[in-house]
């Protein structure tokens, strides 16, 4: 029944919309009917005229019939809307300047909003590409200082075996510890980026394999773990998209592995936004195969993920983890005392660092749209003033105010729709332009496409915008009684309207101030960031990662020998000044740390350690990358596995551990059984993690004295060649020594620096663009208001001028009024900014949220621009000819 009703209504709506062709059809049908009737009468012997008359009599009144049919087909309200729309479109066509100004303003506002929304949509709102992603959490260890850190394998195994809240728990090595493999059996040596995971990793994420299967629990044991899962990209590019690959054997690092499965295209994993980027190139996964007999509780190197059981809330799981943590603290006080376990939804973890920046941009772009609304409302008010007579006449003729309001709103919504369409196109262009600029942690946005959510968003904001600015003219002059309005001179101001306009201008200025202050703070903070001294040289440095096959480079002696030969072969080549090796290069995202003991110091309390970042390097590294030697000596080729064991520490470490002694000659070791190593030098601090990071204690050891096997060193080359030429040179020299060594991740230090500040740069550029847009729109706004004021007071100014006022008196009169509005807006804006800046405090670097320079410079800039905009109409006021002014009405 209801379906029938809806269907009928739908039919009627369709008929209403296209009733003109329908009407023609009726016409044809009726004429034919009449003709046939008349013909019959004629055949019965009537004259043509009489036959036609008789036919008409029999058929009835065709005009009335048509009216009836028409009435049956339309819905009166929609018919009215159609009329309003036609009328509105006609009004816009008659005022192309007004229409263009309004549509362009709206398109800029709506387009900017749609563009930022689609970035947020892709990065924040779109669910992660896993089965029921909301139930996946990451588990971290809460360290004694309250920060969250990676998990020790022994702790992971205890959590996994003891918990009842999760249907599965899995671990992946932190990306600094991720392995890489040299793929054998192919013409050219190539490296596969790997990840090691526990067997349930993919089932916890809920991944459907494209080919083959997941790891079996049995394959996650030492000695049985020669199996591998391929990424879609590796499968299609390195293995020729072989559909029968599952079960085949491949050679990695000269050992054979069996491929068991291939992941679907588009699989991505990251424990954080940055981690997403770090792991985006992973080609191959192998089982972690933790040895149950030798589980570490001290080395923290796992990211742990887990899937909540159906019906288990995060809070309940957290409560269980708290108990688990307390038990482990009791059992292993040395490692786990005062530590905790924290579960965070994976989605929050992934968006955490960018959420705030994006939300700031979304807020800012919303403010831009508000300014745009105010501008369009102003334009509409101007037109309303011009149409005052038309409206009052219509009221006098009996139009209801509701009906007029409906028509005005139709006009506003038509404008908003046009603005929305133009804005959407603008947004698509903006997205195309933005995509290559996206920083790494927004890389999930790179795949953004037009989706329904984006379309709905644009439609909704267009509608809301239309209603918002459409409200302006509803307070127009025809609110007063028709008689009064007609009597009134249409050039004389109505107090209401001027107040409304002034209010809009003040609000626009206040919002523009807020945006400009936000942008000013970002610019200042970015300036501070890129002018930070990183502690190393960033120009003329090329970095590249080498991968030495473990079969032929089994120990650090062999690795150091290769490095020595490579350095010698590079030495003296044109354009190459020096070279060195380090496993962990600044800003590369790779890092490692170690605890250590100092000779002669009393033992530390249980569970506390001396910690330092750990940097195995070759001779020449510190000099090449420009880390200054402050004291003592640097490493030389004489520092080998046979010579005395030595370390170089950085300034922070010297001040932290030997605040009042000379560190040179002191000895330390990395654990109870380790050799004692003598401090031979002190070097400058390095901002290893990022320009906005802090310098940490660091120590450098010669490669041959490292406790790890440094198979994946990064070479740094100081060169005057441009990066392409130097990279080619480097590849040539490496391949002449050993063609089986792949060279990848070739980047200049400048690129690493630039990449590390990409996110702040992105948000600074976007916010600055928005605030400049706001500044222009607000200036147009105040121009409009002052222009209106001058037109309204033309007669007054004319009289003043004829009574002896000088042009500069009039100029002052107008500008004083403008200054009043600008002043009020500025005060409001500054107060609002002072309240809002604390929300962006965390995004600032080396800049106070209430930075006095920004808070002083922005109002001056805005006042200057706004006064300049007001000057144009003010200047016009001084040129008023008194005679013309008096005849103005």
């Amino acid at each position, binding site marked *: 029944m209801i379906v*029938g009703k809806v269907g009928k209504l739908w039919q009627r709506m369709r008929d209403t919309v296209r009733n003109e062709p329908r009407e023609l059809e009726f016409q*044809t049908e009726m004429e*034919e009917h009449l003709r046939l009737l008349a013909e019959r009468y004629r055949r019965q012997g009537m004259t043509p005229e009489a036959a036609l008359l008789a036919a008409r009599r*029999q058929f009835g009144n065709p005009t*009335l019939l048509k009216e009836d049919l028409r009435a049956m087909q339309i819905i009166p309200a929609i018919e009215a809307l159609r009329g309003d729309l036609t009328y509105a479109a006609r009004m816009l066509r008659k005022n192309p300047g007004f229409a263009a100004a309004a549509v362009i303003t709206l398109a800029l506002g709506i387009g900017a909003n749609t563009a930022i929304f689609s970035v947020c949509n892709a990065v924040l709102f779109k669910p992660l590409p896993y089965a029921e992603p909301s139930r996946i959490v990451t588990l971290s260890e809460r360290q004694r200082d309250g920060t969250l850190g990676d998990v020790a394998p022994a702790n992971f195994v205890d959590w996994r075996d003891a918990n009842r809240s999760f249907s599965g728990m899995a671990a992946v090595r932190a990306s600094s510890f991720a392995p890489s493999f040299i793929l054998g059996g192919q013409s050219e040596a190539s490296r596969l980026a790997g990840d090691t995971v526990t067997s349930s990793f993919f089932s916890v994420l809920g991944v459907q394999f494209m080919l083959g299967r997941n790891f079996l629990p049995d394959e996650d044991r030492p000695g049985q773990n020669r199996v591998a899962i391929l990424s879609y990209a590796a499968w299609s590019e390195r293995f020729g998209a072989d559909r029968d690959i599952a079960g085949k054997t491949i050679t990695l690092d000269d050992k054979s592995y069996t491929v068991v499965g291939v992941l679907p295209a588009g699989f991505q994993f990251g424990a954080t936004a940055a981690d997403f980027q770090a792991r985006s190139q992973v080609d191959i996964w192998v089982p972690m195969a933790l040895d149950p007999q030798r589980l570490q509780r001290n080395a923290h190197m796992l990211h742990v993920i887990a899937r909540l059981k159906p019906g288990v809330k995060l809070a309940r799981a957290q409560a269980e983890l708290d108990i688990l943590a307390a038990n482990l603290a009791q059992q292993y006080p040395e490692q786990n005392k005062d530590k905790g376990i924290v579960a965070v939804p994976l989605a929050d973890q992934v968006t955490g660092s960018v959420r705030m920046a994006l939300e700031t941009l979304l807020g800012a772009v919303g403010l831009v749209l508000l300014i745009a609304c105010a501008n369009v409302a102003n334009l509409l008010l101007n037109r309303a003033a011009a149409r005052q007579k038309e409206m009052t006449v219509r009221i006098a003729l009996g139009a209801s105010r509701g009906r007029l309001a409906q028509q005005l709103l139709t006009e506003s919504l038509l404008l908003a729709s046009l603005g929305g369409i133009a804005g959407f196109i603008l947004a698509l262009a903006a997205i195309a332009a933005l995509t290559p600029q996206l920083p790494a942690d927004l890389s999930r946005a790179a795949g953004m496409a037009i989706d329904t959510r984006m379309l709905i968003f644009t439609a909704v904001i267009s509608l809301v915008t239309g209603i918002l600015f459409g409200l302006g003219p509803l307070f127009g002059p025809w609110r007063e009684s028709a008689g009064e309005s007609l009597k009134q001179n249409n050039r004389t101001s109505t107090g209401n309207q001027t107040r409304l306009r002034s209010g809009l201008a003040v609000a626009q200025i206040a919002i523009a101030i807020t945006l400009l202050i936000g942008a000013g703070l970002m610019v200042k903070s970015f300036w501070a960031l890129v002018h930070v001294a990183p502690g190393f040289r960033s120009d003329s440095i090329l970095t590249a990662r080498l991968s030495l096959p473990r079969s032929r480079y089994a120990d650090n002696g062999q690795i150091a020998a290769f490095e020595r030969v490579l350095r010698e072969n590079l030495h003296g080549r044109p354009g190459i000044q020096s070279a060195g090796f380090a496993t962990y290069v600044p800003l590369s995202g790779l890092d490692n740390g170690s605890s250590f003991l100092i000779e002669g110091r009393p033992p530390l309390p249980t569970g506390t350690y001396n910690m330092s970042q750990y940097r195995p390097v070759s001779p020449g590294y510190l000099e090449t990358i420009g880390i200054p030697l402050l004291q003592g000596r640097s490493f030389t080729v004489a520092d080998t596995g046979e010579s005395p064991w030595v370390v170089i520490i950085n300034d922070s470490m010297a001040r932290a551990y030997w605040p009042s002694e000379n560190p040179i000659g002191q000895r330390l070791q990395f654990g109870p059984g380790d050799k004692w190593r003598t401090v031979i030098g002190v070097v400058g601090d390095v901002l290893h993690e990022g320009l906005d990071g802090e310098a940490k204690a660091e120590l450098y050891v010669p490669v041959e004295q490292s406790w790890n096997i440094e198979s994946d060193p990064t070479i740094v080359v100081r060169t005057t060649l441009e990066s392409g030429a130097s990279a080619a040179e480097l590849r040539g020299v490496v391949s002449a020594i050993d063609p089986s060594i792949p060279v990848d991740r070739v980047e200049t230090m400048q690129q690493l620096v630039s990449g590390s500040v990409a996110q702040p740069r992105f948000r600074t550029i976007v916010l600055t663009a928005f605030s400049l847009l706001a500044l222009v729109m607000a200036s147009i706004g105040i121009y409009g208001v002052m222009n209106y004021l001058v037109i309204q007071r033309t007669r007054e100014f004319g009289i003043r001028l004829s009574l002896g006022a000088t042009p500069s008196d009039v100029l002052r009169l107008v500008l004083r009024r403008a200054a009043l509005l600008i002043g009020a807006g500025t005060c409001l804006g500054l107060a609002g900014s002072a309240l809002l800046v604390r929300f962006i405090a965390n995004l600032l670097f080396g800049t106070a949220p209430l930075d006095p320079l920004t808070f002083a410079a922005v109002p001056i800039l805005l006042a200057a621009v706004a006064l300049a905009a007001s000057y144009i109409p003010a200047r016009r006021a001084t040129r008023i000819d008194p005679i013309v002014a008096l005849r103005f009405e």
Partner: protein
Amino acid sequence: MFAMTKRKGDINKKSEALQGTLDLMILKTLQAMGPLHGFGIARRLEQLSEEALRLNEGAVYTSLLRLQQEGWIAAEWGASENNRKAKFYSITNRGLKQLERETEDWERISGVIDRLLRLEGQR
């Protein structure tokens, strides 16, 4: 028999009984004769009522539009016998069901009225 309403707003209220009758007759005609154009329907109705009822034939078109809106009949443009453009109406499946329902209703009501009238005659 053919009725013609005068004012727009009244069309759905006034003389619903008569319209209902006309609707039923048109449905029955289309069911019995297959697709017809408006003129053809009017001729058929004229024939059936043995020319006793000849009034405003235009009302057929209000009926046809209403039946279309209900989805009981469908319309299609075609060529008439003498090759002129004409709109042909045919009954839909939903229309056939409606006809069935209305026929039952009609028979029931006419039976009741029949009995009622006979009762009066006996007094």
